[in-house]
């Protein structure tokens, strides 16, 4: 095959992939190798493909994705730590015709915001919750999260999570699936192209549910935090497959069609 130059590569006819306009040109603040960036892209591509940029309001959490509004080219609100589902509740109730989603980490959603999460899900608010579970507090420097695995080291469990004194990891997604208010609860990942495709399908389904006023859709994305886990990106993905997936198995947990 003939060599292709950089210039030729940039010609429109040779483009096979383009960043969605719903992502801004601002360089992502995430560590190289982190799953947050891919998750952002998937959500924005889905909004783009559905043509609902002008009808969507996103809620950013406190956590590494606190600056999601810098990257997502839509109207956004930044919520207090854990409170995104309450914020989203009001936005959706006051704008039932708009699309509303929250994007939250595990500390945000499953520790400080447990009450807001459970109750928004239980009320069946017609919103989408995107839940990034990386088993650690990334933003604050790698402390133990409610989802940290037994024996897993973090800066506040330096000898590994001792479940006798620190409790067991919380499978909040399974808990949420029990609530009649949720319509679709699924757990996905974004570390391989195949998983990216699956996650995108799940996110699309979640927003389609909202369009049909079906109730709350909850998409967990099991992700890596290579910085917090103190691993290279590749090591962290391997570690995730070996350790996180057995505890947090991927796939649909609840589908009420």
């Amino acid at each position, binding site marked *: 095959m003939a060599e292709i130059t950089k210039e030729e590569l940039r010609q429109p006819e040779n483009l096979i992939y383009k960043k969605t306009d719903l992502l801004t040109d601002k360089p992502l603040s995430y560590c190289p190798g982190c799953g947050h960036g891919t998750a952002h892209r998937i959500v924005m591509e889905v909004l783009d493909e559905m043509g609902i*940029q002008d009808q969507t309001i996103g809620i950013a959490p406190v956590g590494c994705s606190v600056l999601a509004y810098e990257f997502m*080219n839509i*109207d*956004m609100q930044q*919520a207090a730590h854990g409170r995104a589902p309450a914020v989203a*509740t*009001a936005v959706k*109730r006051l704008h039932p015709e708009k699309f509303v989603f929250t994007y939250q980490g595990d500390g945000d959603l499953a520790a400080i915001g447990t009450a807001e999460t459970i109750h928004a899900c239980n009320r069946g608010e017609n919103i989408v919750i995107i839940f990034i579970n990386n088993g650690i507090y990334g933003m604050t420097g790698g402390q133990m999260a409610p989802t940290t695995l037994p024996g897993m080291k973090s800066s506040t469990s330096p000898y590994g999570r001792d479940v006798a004194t620190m409790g067991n990891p919380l499978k909040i997604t399974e808990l949420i699936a029990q609530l009649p208010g949720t319509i679709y609860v699924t757990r996905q990942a974004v570390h391989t192209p195949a998983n990216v495709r699956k996650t995108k399908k799940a996110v699309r389904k979640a927003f389609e549910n909202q369009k049909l006023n079906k109730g709350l859709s909850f998409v967990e994305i099991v992700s890596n935090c290579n910085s917090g886990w103190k691993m290279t990106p590749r090591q962290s993905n391997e570690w995730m497959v070996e350790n996180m997936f057995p505890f947090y198995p991927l796939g649909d947990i609840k589908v009420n069609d």
Partner: protein
Amino acid sequence: MKELRLMKGNEAFAEAAIRAGADGYFGYPITPQSEVMEYLMAEKPEERTGMIVLQAESEIAAINMVYGGAACGKRVLTSSSSPGVSLKQEGISYIAGAELPCVILNVARGGPGLGTIQPAQSDYFQSTKGGGHGDYKMLVLAPSSVQEMADFAGLGFELAFKYRNPVLILSDGAIGQMMEKVELDEQRPRFTDEEIKNNTPWATTGKTKDRERNIITSLDLDSYKQELHNLDLQAKYREMEKNETRYEAISCDDAEYLIVAYGTSARLSQKAVDLLRAEGIKVGLLRPITLFPFPTAVIAKLADQVKGILTVEMSAGQMIEDVRLAVGCRVKVEHFGRMGGIIPSPTEIVDAMHKKIIGG
């Protein structure tokens, strides 16, 4: 047309909020303010005006719902009583930081802790000196009648939108629970989408092609920008001080002594003024209606006229600090108050005036 009704303070506030064109109420039950949400739920404002009412899982959730609604340019409100208002403080700080308009009612009760369900004024510091973290101010209105409970719902929204700032109505259990005659305003329409677009162009309503995206946040990791934001906030608060200071001066023209009191204490102090005047002592009452901005200038002026000032508060003495700041050391300023949910009687106030100011 105005409508005359006999109502509890809490109910009058709720009805007035509907009539002020509110879009959403978010609350959590707590005595002595639960009638606000009970009235709203019974009234079904969704059928009357389209206003929504939601019982949240906590005061924390409720204030964050207010954040979300306000960020959409809607007229939203919440109400609670002291322990619940403590829980709201983080949310209030975010609302102040993101410069969102909303109305918050505190029907205060005695503390600290779970305290009592009886009325108190011990949340003055929390209301006027921050409460939550960071350098921020709420505009604080202090009603002393059921009529003002109703009036301040509408006024609260007006001021909140004028300044893009949270407005706190600091009431207490006595005013929330008592029944009085109240004149209610006519129904005002809720904002239309067009009005929201034009009047609150910052609101998150979905990014259309004709504008940049709207972001509601209180975060700026760049300290220089964060300082500029803080300077803007401070300039706004100075503007409120200039334009929005409200008070009522009763029998102050010839006063030789002065009582400063707000809310329920002001009602009792007015009776005390009558009793003292019957004794031939010329006493006036200065009732702050806004606690922030505080009527500093008028109190400073009265300090040149009177021989002594008694502040009456249902607390250990909180507002007295602002009165003393206004007065300096020119005349004696003393506090009289009851705590723990006890309402002082006018004769107790008369006695305190004699002991602490006139004879003291």
